[in-house]
C-alpha cells in the first residue's frame, strides 16, 4: 500500500516567519497535488505538480517536487494569519492517496 507521510503534523508559527512542510511518499509517481482545508470546510486545490523538478508558486506558498527522492515540499514565506488551515498533499500512483495533513496555525 502506498504511504504518504507529512511532516510536521502540527505547526504553529508566528506571522512573518518562513517554514516548510514536507510530503514523503513510498511509490513511484510524478503526479502530486497540494490542497488546503479550512476547519469544517471542504478542500481547495492549491498546486498540481506533474514532473520531477516542478515548482509552482502562488502568493506566499511555493510547492516543489523531487520524484527521485519521492519528496514534495510546501514552503511558506512570511506567514500571515489567513494561511491558518490544514494542508494535504496527495499522490497519484497506482492508487490515489492523501497524506496525513499538516495543521498550520499562524500566530499574530
Amino acid at each position: 500500500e502506498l504511504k504518504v507521510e507529512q511532516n510536521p503534523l502540527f505547526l504553529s508559527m508566528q506571522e512573518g516567519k518562513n517554514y516548510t512542510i514536507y510530503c514523503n511518499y513510498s511509490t513511484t509517481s510524478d503526479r502530486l497535488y497540494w490542497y488546503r482545508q479550512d476547519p469544517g470546510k471542504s478542500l481547495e486545490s492549491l498546486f498540481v505538480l506533474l514532473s520531477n523538478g516542478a515548482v509552482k508558486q502562488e502568493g506566499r506558498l511555493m510547492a516543489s517536487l523531487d520524484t527521485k527522492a519521492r519528496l514534495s515540499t510546501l514552503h511558506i514565506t512570511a506567514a500571515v494569519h489567513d494561511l491558518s488551515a490544514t494542508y494535504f498533499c496527495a499522490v497519484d500512483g497506482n492508487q490515489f492517496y492523501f497524506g496525513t495533513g499538516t495543521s498550520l496555525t499562524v500566530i499574530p
Partner: protein
Amino acid sequence: EAGVAQSPRYKIIEKRQSVAFWCNPISGHATLYWYQQILGQGPKLLIQFQNNGVVDDSQLPKDRFSAERLKGVDSTLKIQPAKLEDSAVYLCASSSRDRARFGTQYFGPGTRLLVL
C-alpha cells in the same frame, strides 16, 4: 460557474440503517470522485467514475458501500448497513479530465454522517 453540490449536508442514523448521499458535479466534468474523510485524517478515495463507468473502486468496501453514476452526471453513494466506523465526512469531487491527464479536482462541501 456553479460548484459541486452535495446533499444532505448532515445525516444522523443508527447502526444497521441505510443511507444515501447525492452529488451533482460541475457541469461538463466527466470525472467524479467519492472520498471518505474520517476526523483528523486525510480523505480516502472510495470510487472514481469516468462518465458513467467505474475507473477505480479498489478502496470501496463493496460489502456495504455502493455507488452509481447514471447518465454520467449525478451520482449517489449508498451505505447499507451502516456501521459506527462509517461516521465521517463524505466528499464528492469532479474534474474535467481524468487522472491520467492530470485533472484538478474541485470538491463539494461534503456530507457529515454520524452513525449512532
